[in-house]
C-alpha cells in the first residue's frame, strides 16, 4: 500500500478502511474530506507524493479516483477536495464524520519534488485543479528553503467558486509563497484580489524568474491548459519543465483496464503527471 515499495506489491485490489476525520464545505458543490487509515501501521506506512491519487470504494456504488490534496510532509492523515458531479460523489456526500470508507492506493506517478529543489516554480491552477496542487503548495511551504522563487496563480469562476479560499488567502498573507488569486468575474464586488483569467497574470512573472531554471506546474479544466502553456512558452520556460497533471477515466489504477490510455501511455501508471515535452504531439490530450 505504499508507492515507495516495489510495484509488485500493489498487486491486489484489497482496500483499507479509513475513517473520515472531518468534512467541510469548500464551495456549494465541493467538499473537503480528511481521512485516516484505521490500521495504525497502514496509516504510518501510507507514503505518497504530491500529484498521486487514491481510489475510493463504496460497495454497491462503485469505485472512483481522487487526487490527494494533502502533503506527505504532514503525517497521520490524508485530505481530499471532492466535487459532487456523479453517482459516486453523491453517495460519498451522504457520509458523515466518523464514517468509514475503503480506499486503495496511492497510484500514479506524482511530482518528483526532490528534483525541483533550487528551481523557480510557477504553479498555476484553475477550478478543481487546486486540489492536487494544494498538495504541492503545502509541501513547498513546509520545505520552503529548498526552493527558489515560488509563484502560485489560482483562478476560479467567482469568489464563491474558489476552492480552499480560506487556505489560499492565509497563504497569501503568510507570503511564504507569492500567491495571486484571480476570479473570472467578481459578482460580489468585494473581491480584493485580481479579476480576470489566470493566464493574464503569467506575463508579469517574466522579469522575476530565470526561465531556464523555472519549472511550471499546471492543473485545471481541459480548456485552461492550452492558454496557460502558450503563455509559459512565451516566457521561454523549457517544454520539459512544464509539468501538468491530467484527468482520465480510470477503473483499475494499475494499467490493466485500458480506459486512461492517451497515446501509448496509461495515465494511471505513467501519469497523471506528464511533462509538456512528452505529450506535446499527442493530439487528443486536452
Amino acid at each position: 500500500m505504499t508507492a515507495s515499495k516495489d510495484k509488485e506489491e500493489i498487486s491486489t485490489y484489497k482496500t483499507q478502511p479509513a475513517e473520515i476525520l472531518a468534512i467541510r464545505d469548500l464551495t456549494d458543490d465541493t467538499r473537503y474530506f480528511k481521512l485516516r487509515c484505521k490500521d495504525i501501521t497502514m496509516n504510518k506506512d501510507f507514503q505518497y507524493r504530491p500529484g498521486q491519487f487514491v481510489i475510493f470504494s463504496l460497495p454497491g456504488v462503485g469505485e472512483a479516483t481522487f487526487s490527494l490534496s494533502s502533503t506527505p510532509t504532514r503525517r497521520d492523515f490524508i485530505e481530499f477536495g471532492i466535487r459532487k458531479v456523479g453517482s459516486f460523489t453523491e453517495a460519498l456526500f451522504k457520509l458523515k464524520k466518523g464514517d468509514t470508507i475503503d480506499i486503495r492506493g496511492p497510484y500514479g506517478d506524482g511530482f518528483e519534488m526532490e528534483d525541483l529543489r533550487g528551481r523557480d516554480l510557477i504553479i498555476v491552477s484553475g477550478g478543481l485543479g487546486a486540489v492536487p496542487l494544494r498538495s504541492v503548495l503545502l509541501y513547498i511551504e513546509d520545505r520552503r528553503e529548498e526552493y527558489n522563487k515560488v509563484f502560485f496563480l489560482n483562478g476560479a469562476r467567482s469568489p464563491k467558486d474558489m476552492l480552499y479560499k480560506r487556505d489560499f488567502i492565509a497563504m497569501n498573507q503568510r507570503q511564504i509563497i507569492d500567491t495571486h488569486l484571480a476570479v473570472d468575474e467578481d459578482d460580489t464586488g468585494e473581491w480584493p484580489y485580481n479579476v480576470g483569467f489566470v493566464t493574464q497574470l503569467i506575463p508579469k512573472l517574466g522579469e522575476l524568474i530565470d526561465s531556464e531554471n523555472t519549472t511550471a506546474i499546471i492543473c485545471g479544466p481541459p480548456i485552461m491548459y492550452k492558454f496557460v502553456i502558450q503563455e509559459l512558452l512565451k516566457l521561454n520556460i523549457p517544454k520539459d519543465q512544464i509539468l501538468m497533471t491530467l484527468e482520465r477515466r480510470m477503473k483499475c489504477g494499475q494499467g490493466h483496464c485500458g480506459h486512461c490510455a492517451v497515446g501509448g501511455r496509461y495515465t494511471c501508471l505513467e501519469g497523471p503527471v506528464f511533462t509538456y515535452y512528452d505529450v506535446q504531439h499527442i493530439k487528443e490530450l486536452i
Partner: protein
Amino acid sequence: MSKEKFPEFVELIKSKGKLFGPVKQKEKYSFEEIKDFSELDFDYQRTIISPKKFITPAKYSTLRFVKFGQTEVLPDDEPQIVMGVHPCDIHAIKILDRLFLGNIKDPYYAKRRENLIIIGHSCLPDDKCVCQSTGTDMVEDGFDLFLTELDDFYLLWVGSDKGLGIAIEAENLLEENVSEEEIQEYVRWQQERSSMFTTSIPSYKYLADIIHLNYDSDVWEQFGEKCLSCGTCSLVCPTCNCFHVDDKIMMNAEEGIRERMLDSCTLPYYSMVAGNHDFRPDRTARLKLYYTHKLKEYIGRWGQPSCVGCGRCIAYCPVDINVITVSNALFEEVCETQEVCDQ
C-alpha cells in the same frame, strides 16, 4: 502419436480438469466444454470468441459484499484445459500475459492463467487469416502441449513442465522416436501451409509509421462515419482486454457484487469522466484509439503490435472495418501524399 491413439490421449487429458475444445455450432465454432471425444472438431479456422474467455471472462465478480463487510472473490482453483488452440490465439495469450502478469500482477487473471492448460493444434489458413503478415503463424512457446496434425499421425511439442507431465503420463500412447521421414513430412506440410495464405497486409511492418503520418487523415473520418460503435471488434479480438467495473445490488438491498466486464474503446462513454466531460465523444476518435493503440502504441510499449492476424475482425465487423481495410486505406493515403512506398 498415431491417430488411432488420439481419443485415448484426449481421455487422459480430460482426467486433468474441465476440458474445453472447438465445437461446431450452426456453422460457427466455439470453445465449449467437452463431455465426449466426438464433440471435438479440429477442422476449423477460428472460433467466435478466442480462448481469452478462459482468462478474462466477459463478466465475473471480484467482490461480494453484505451490509457490514466484504470479501474478495477469487476464481475457482479447478484446472481448465483448452484444446485445439491455434498459434495466433496462443500469441494473443502471450500478449495478455505480458500485460496482466507484468510489473503489476492482476490477481484474477493470474489465478485463472495458473489453472489453465493450453493444448495447441495446427491449422490451415482461409482467406481471412493474416497471421503470416503479423508473424504469428508459428508458435514456439506459450503452450503446454502443441499438436501438429499430419496425414497419419500427430507430432507433439512439449512447451512447459505441466505439458511434460502429461506427456510422461501418456508415454504408452506416444512414440519416442520421430523418424527422418516423419520430419520430412512435417517440413513439407509446413511449406505447403505457408503457401496457402492468400491474404496479407503488405504494409504491416511500416504500420506504426504509416499510422503516425496519417494521424489527421480523412481516412479515420470515413471509417468513423461507417462505424456502428457496436464493440464487436473488441469482443472478438483475442487481445482486447479493456474492462469496466460495476457494482450490483441485489433485490434485498443488503448484499451485492462488484463485477468486472469486458469493455470496448469503441463504445460511447469509454473516455467520459465525471462531470460529463468526454475525451473522445465521436466514433472517429474512438476508432482511431482502437487501431492506433493496437497497431502502433503497443510496439512502443511491448515491442510488437497486438494484432495476431486471427481474422476475427475481418469475419465479424458488420461494416467491414478491420485490420486489412484500415491498414490498406492508410497505406494508400501515404502513397498518395508521399513517395515513400515505392518498394
